[in-house]
């Protein structure tokens, strides 16, 4: 077994053993889907420009955001704080393998949560499936990569695991607002819409909703997600400390 496979296997076990990450990834999005699905929040709202896919898109966007902005940076910053990355530096294996394994595990968790949410939405609430599945997958992966990129940046800058959790939460709440979690579609105030179009969560949700309705994600959304991913990854690669 290659070193990365071995480390990824161990990191996935640790991920599953941590109840917080499991709850955040699966229980929260499923809960949102079930609660809002049960009260009939499954129809689109053409008048306010809200896609029928808003509810499943919201659920899996929140799952990806919690993984990227909370679970990933907290785990990595804690590993550094406790000297786990430093300890690895004394072995023939570079700690960058742990970082890669963490990204993989969180990505698989995000995809897993997405599959469960979509299946549950289609089967239990008759929400249907994205009309443009390829565009949807692309939008989802880009959103996840930009959120994980931000998570790496938080992990790079936070001195401790607790600090990483706090910074992650500080990013999480405004992200939800600008993504239109409370004000979907045209219900969002005019001034906030440009931020929604380019903020990782907002752009990701818009792109996924377009794909849900059968279109291709808008260029502004895609470019914004790519820029955030590349810039966040480049900056964290530059400032990430292993000890």
């Amino acid at each position, binding site marked *: *077994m290659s070193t990365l496979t*071995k480390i990824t296997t161990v990191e996935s076990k640790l991920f599953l053993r941590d109840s917080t990450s499991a709850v955040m990834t699966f229980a929260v999005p499923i809960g949102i889907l079930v609660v809002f699905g049960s009260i009939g929040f499954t129809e689109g709202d053409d008048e306010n420009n809200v896609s029928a896919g808003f509810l499943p898109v919201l659920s899996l966007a929140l799952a990806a955001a919690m993984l990227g902005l909370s679970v990933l940076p907290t785990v990595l910053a804690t590993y550094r704080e*406790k000297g786990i990355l*430093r*300890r690895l530096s004394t072995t023939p294996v570079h700690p960058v393998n742990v970082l890669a394994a963490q990204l993989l595990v969180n990505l698989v968790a995000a995809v897993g949560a997405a599959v469960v949410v979509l299946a549950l939405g289609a089967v239990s609430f008759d929400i249907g499936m994205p009309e443009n599945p390829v565009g949807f997958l692309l939008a989802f992966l880009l959103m996840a990569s930009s959120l994980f990129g931000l998570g790496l940046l938080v992990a790079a800058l936070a001195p401790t695991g607790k600090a990483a959790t706090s910074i992650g939460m500080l990013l999480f709440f405004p992200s939800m607002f600008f993504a239109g979690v409370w004000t979907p579609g045209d219900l969002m105030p005019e001034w906030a819409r440009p931020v929604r179009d380019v903020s990782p969560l907002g752009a990701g949700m818009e792109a996924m909703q377009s794909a849900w309705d059968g279109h291709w994600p808008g260029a502004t959304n895609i470019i914004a997600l790519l820029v955030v991913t590349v810039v966040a990854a480049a900056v964290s690669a530059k400032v990430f400390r292993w000890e």
Partner: protein
Amino acid sequence: MPIIEVRNLHKAYGSTVAVDDVSFEVEEGEIFGILGPNGAGKTTTVECIEGLRRPDGGSVSVLGLDPIRDRMDVRRVLGAQLQESELPEKLTAAEALDLYASFYPSPANPAELLDDLGLADKAGTRFEKLSGGQKQRLSIALALVGNPRIAVLDELTTGLDPQARRDTWQLIEQVRARGVTIILVTHFMDEAERLCDRLALIDGGRVAAIDSPAGLISRVSTEQTLRFRPSAPLDEAVLTALPDVTAVSREGAHYVVTGTGNLPYTVITTLAAHDVVAAELRMDQASLEDAFVAMTGRSFEPQIAA
């Protein structure tokens, strides 16, 4: 040929000089101690050997390799136990060892190692549930799992209770018996005296002396002191006449005899010849701490009870 050579090592962090000028050699198969107060530069010195830090000056050679340039080769033969390094809370002891074993070309058998370190019944226990002593033993196991030729152990017994410390010492002697060369960083005098074949006293980023523990002590003083209460009246002259005795004084009912050579043997046989038994006998010798004070001109920092 020495297995590790450190020459004029210098390392500063900004304007703070951590290691000023340190040189020493470690021979294969020995336990080499690096002893000094907190902040003396001990950890920085071994971090340069481990390849975790790049020296600002001087050179470090491990088996003829440069820990920075040949980092991969050095890491395969050197196992490290770091100060204050933990593992993920929910990782079990067996998983940790198994994972670390997979990093090395010819690792030790993780199950056997757990057994050797008395952790066999803790194999399935998560790191967060291990006691301080068990965590420390696991940390030693991780340092050994790659079958290293050199093990660097930094502040091995800090935070352990007295029984766990003694157990750990015994363990280190077993490791050495397998042929592993050990560098032991410590600020505990008793630990250094008990375990090390040779040690470097480090103070203020410089080497104050390198010798065996006994050698260091004998540099300061070869005098010993015996204190006892004679079971019958005794003429002081009997003792002062002995060639090994330099002084005799009385403290109430007790005699205090200072001298050199084989003082206890000479004094006790002389007493026996006069039908006197030495009661409440106590012997004092210079300690490693006295040696440190004498060689650095300052007292060893009070040891913080961890």
